[in-house]
């Protein structure tokens, strides 16, 4: 370590320089530590058993009072509904549902909404939700709980869940006879999957406000009646009254989760009723017992993060989270065979009805919104979880690489090096003047802050345009599908980003400064994304941090093969490329029988659709994914691409400058013309 024994450098700089030489090793060590920490979380020593921390819930203290007559009612309603479905192939039998709700004594209302589909010249869709309110008998209507069942028309491509509505109605009929409700119960039947729910929620919360109708894509309208502030919601998706298992779905919009207490409550009550239930519960036959605990846990964690990272809710419950209403879906799956049927078919749904009753009574006990337990967690197993405090270090370790590298790059910028050389030179000549000179030096030498800032702004502008352009009236009027339109706009803007570093070249020191700025923005962006949606932030970090660590602007330090590899990797990390690769992998997984060429073609159309859906999701539901990719990841990629190319305008000048520290006037003259070139 000759560096450390060099007397010309102060101790602090010694450390910094020492680190700077090994910055890659240190960063890769951090990266490995972060990833290893994440894997460790699957070990039982690193995660915790779930528990209920909200006392008020008191789950399972009441005996269920719902009896077999409710099940009989459900069966009868299901038969009636099946007859109705024959007449309503592609619509919801609104009249029948409303009539039943009225019959059970609920305060029944309908809610109309309109979707103005912006692409391809514009179209209008109309939808209708039905809801019945059961007012709390002995308390003011200040709080409410929602029990929702989506209705799928017979023509839908998704699995038939028509049993949910009869089950909901049977429970409503039971609940109406009870006097202990301290909150209004809302029984809601929505149509058109998440759209209906989104419209209902918007109408519930903002329906009486005057919104700019011309701008809104979804016009939710208003509701004729409300039930106070909503405390919790339970979405019920039942395939059949005879169920095999219940899958508890929790991931909401943008990866938000309901309070862990809510999940635990459902698990506890389901267990009491003897229903096989869990997060991503597999059917009885498919449950694997051969895997080790560690493998199972890791698989569970990764599937949860994967479904969270897209930000798309896994059910109608996910839209509630935006309004700070804890909600989840209990998706009851049909029993495959009747061989294992224990009880008579006449009592098949009783356990599920009892579970719904138990959940309802616990939610009824709530004194305020869920606030005790975790909102940020990863489910490892049905009874084990990782809290934010435990999983965040993994991401922090990954992101720390960026900040560490940013600091070390900053402290070893050419200017600073020059200063140090100069200082070292002077130290030998006249030792007493060193302090004075060091204070003066930074003023003399100036990094091209202005041009770097302009460059950054330009890249961010490209990202911003990705968000805005596809929704401009001019583009919308083109008679073109959403997918080709979005894709073409995105590809065009990405192309601009691709070409940008060839056209605009930064002045000396600019690349290094850009590198520091890139690392800082990248680090901040990842940590913020990770806080809002850990899954997205973590996956993005795992994917990109190695590249960011490897990235180097100093040409003389690295071999050309390494540089080319980095360039290739950067190209592969293009957000559009990544989206395509992910879609390709999913297509391959789903249709393994197809030939590769067909798969690639199909994946391309699917990726185009995905980008269009991302845009639509962002404007209708408020999904951030499209925004994050366009406004954050794309600009970051452009900068990364610039850095990996390391195009220097005036290489000779730069070398010159590096060797002998130039006077301020010389530097000024160097900087000035280049910034002009850039603006040209």
């Amino acid at each position, binding site marked *: 370590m000759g560096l450390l024994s060099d007397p010309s450098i102060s101790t602090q700089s010694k450390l910094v320089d020492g680190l700077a030489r090994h910055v890659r090793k240190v960063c890769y060590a951090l990266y490995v530590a972060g990833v290893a920490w994440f894997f460790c979380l699957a070990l039982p020593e690193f995660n915790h058993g779930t528990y209920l921390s909200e*006392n*008020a819930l*008191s789950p399972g*203290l*009441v*005996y269920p009072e719902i009896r077999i007559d409710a099940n009989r009612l459900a069966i009868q309603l299901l038969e009636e509904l099946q007859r109705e479905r024959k007449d309503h192939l592609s619509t919801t039998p609104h009249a029948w549902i409303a009539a039943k709700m009225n019959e059970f004594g609920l305060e029944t209302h309908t809610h109309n909404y309109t979707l103005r589909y912006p692409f391809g010249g514009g179209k209008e869709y109309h939808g209708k939700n039905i809801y019945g309110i059961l007012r*709390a*008998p*002995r*308390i003011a209507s200040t709080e409410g709980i929602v029990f929702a069942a989506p209705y799928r028309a017979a023509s839908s491509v998704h699995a038939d869940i028509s049993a949910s509505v009869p089950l909901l109605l049977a429970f409503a009929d039971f609940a109406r006879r*009870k*006097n*202990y*409700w*301290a909150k209004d119960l809302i029984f809601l039947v929505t149509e058109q999957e998440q759209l209906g729910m989104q419209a209902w929620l918007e109408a519930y919360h903002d329906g009486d406000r005057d919104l700019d109708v011309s701008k809104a894509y979804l016009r939710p309208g208003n509701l004729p009646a409300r039930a106070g502030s909503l405390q919790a919601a339970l979405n019920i998706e039942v395939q059949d009254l005879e169920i095999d298992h219940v899958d508890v779905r929790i991931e909401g919009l943008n990866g938000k989760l309901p309070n862990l207490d809510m999940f635990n409550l459902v698990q506890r009550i389901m267990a009491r009723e003897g229903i096989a239930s869990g997060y991503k519960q597999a059917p009885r036959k498919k449950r694997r017992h051969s895997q080790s605990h560690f493998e199972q846990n890791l698989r569970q964690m990764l599937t949860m993060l994967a479904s969270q990272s897209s930000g798309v809710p896994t059910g109608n419950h996910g839209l509630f989270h935006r309004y700070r209403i804890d909600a989840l879906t209990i998706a009851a799956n049909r029993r495959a065979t009747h061989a294992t049927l224990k009880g008579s078919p006449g009592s098949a749904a009783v356990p599920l009805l009892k579970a719904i009753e138990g959940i309802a*009574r616990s939610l*009824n*006990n709530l*004194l305020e919104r869920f606030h005790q337990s975790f909102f940020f967690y990863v489910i490892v197993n049905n009874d084990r979880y990782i809290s934010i405090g435990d999983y965040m270090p993994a991401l922090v370790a990954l992101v720390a690489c960026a900040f560490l590298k940013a600091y070390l790059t900053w402290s070893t910028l050419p200017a600073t090096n020059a200063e140090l050389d100069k200082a070292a030179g002077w130290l030998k000549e006249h030792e007493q003047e060193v302090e004075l000179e060091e204070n003066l030096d930074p003023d003399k030498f100036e990094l091209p802050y202005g041009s770097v800032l302009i460059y950054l702004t330009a890249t961010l502008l490209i990202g911003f345009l990705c968000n805005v352009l596809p929704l401009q009236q001019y583009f919308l009027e083109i008679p073109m599908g959403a997918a080709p339109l979005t894709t073409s706009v995105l590809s065009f803007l990405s192309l601009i980003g691709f070409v940008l570093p060839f056209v605009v070249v930064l002045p000396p020191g600019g690349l290094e400064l850009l590198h520091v700025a890139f690392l800082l923005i990248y680090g901040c962006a990842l940590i913020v994304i990770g806080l809002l949606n850990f899954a997205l932030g973590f996956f993005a970090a795992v994917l990109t941090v190695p590249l960011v660590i490897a990235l180097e602007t100093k040409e003389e330090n690295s071999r050309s093969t390494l540089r080319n590899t980095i360039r290739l990797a950067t190209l592969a990390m293009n957000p559009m490329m990544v989206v395509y690769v992910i879609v390709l992998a999913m297509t391959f997984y789903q249709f393994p029988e197809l030939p590769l060429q067909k798969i690639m073609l199909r994946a391309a159309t699917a990726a185009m659709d995905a980008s269009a859906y991302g845009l639509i999701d962002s404007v209708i539901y408020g999904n951030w994914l499209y925004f994050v990719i366009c406004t954050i990841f794309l600009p970051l990629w452009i900068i990364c691409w610039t850095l990996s190319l390391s195009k220097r305008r005036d290489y000779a000048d730069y070398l010159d400058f590096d060797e002998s520290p130039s006077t301020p006037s010389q530097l000024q003259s160097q900087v000035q013309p280049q910034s002009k070139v850039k603006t040209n």
Partner: protein
Amino acid sequence: MFLKLLVVFGLILASCRVEADNTSVLPEGFVDAAQRSTHTNNWAVLVDASRFWFNYRHVANVLSIYRSVKRLGIPDSQIILMIADDMACNARNPRPGQVYNNANQHINVYGDDVEVDYRGYEVTVENFVRLLTGRTQNGTARSKKLLSDAGSNVLIYLTGHGGDGFLKFQDSEEITSQELADGIQQMWEKKRYNELFFMVDTCQAASLYEKFTSPNVLAVASSLVGEDSLSHHVDPSIGVYMIDRYTYYALEFLEKVQPFSKRTIGEFLQVCPKRVCISTVGVRKDLYRRDPHKVPITDFFGAIRPTRVSTDRINVTLANEDDFIFDKDKMVTKKPFKIVMESQFPSELFK
């Protein structure tokens, strides 16, 4: 006239003493107890400090004790009942207007004649301390005051959620053991009690009486420091825990006590052994001068004052003195009787 009255009283007292000395028909133990028991009236302060539906059991606790002391003779005017939440009318209560302390639901402890003196948000630390020390604000209703005196035996029962050295009131504040000890010391200094029985059913309840220094205080707590007090059972039709263990077993004992029962406080202190209570019951006797095993439980839980039964004739009519004197010679000449009043104010100091 006043002097005459005093003379008659003096005579009666003198004759009584002569009789007691002579006959001694009453059992010695009772006489002993009666002479030591100096209280003339009983008061009870019953506090439920916690609110919310899931704390139903605390309300059931306090109402059960209320029912017992009322049954044993303390009138409503001398019971201060503080209940922080209204369970009977809670919208979640499947049996509106009723509170039970047992899953069998045979006693509605929220009966027809419960007088709650401090309710809901009136149950605060400030109000409780003001009540104990008698520093109630102007205009406080008589029913909200503890009008005890130097002859009062006071029962204080607290229930709620406690920790090491404090008891939580409502959801926002807590009374510390030091504040409690200071309040009781002030009661003693202001001659607001003769004897005080302090009973508390919370987690780490024993921490609440640790700081007491005032004399004549007997304290019992449902659990020691570091222990939780547990609930007894759930009523699955209401969906809440019904009653706490310690109070449950205390009530089991009290239900068998009748107003003239010979049960003692000593027995009462042992109602909840660890095997049923799970927590260890803490007792503090060092401030109390009497042997708890000789103190009738009704000294605190009832309104039974020491009485003596006399079968002999005692003349208590306040007739003219001359009417009774038939033979002046047979009369025992009594010495001149003079009453010296203690001066109320040390005026001699200022002379």
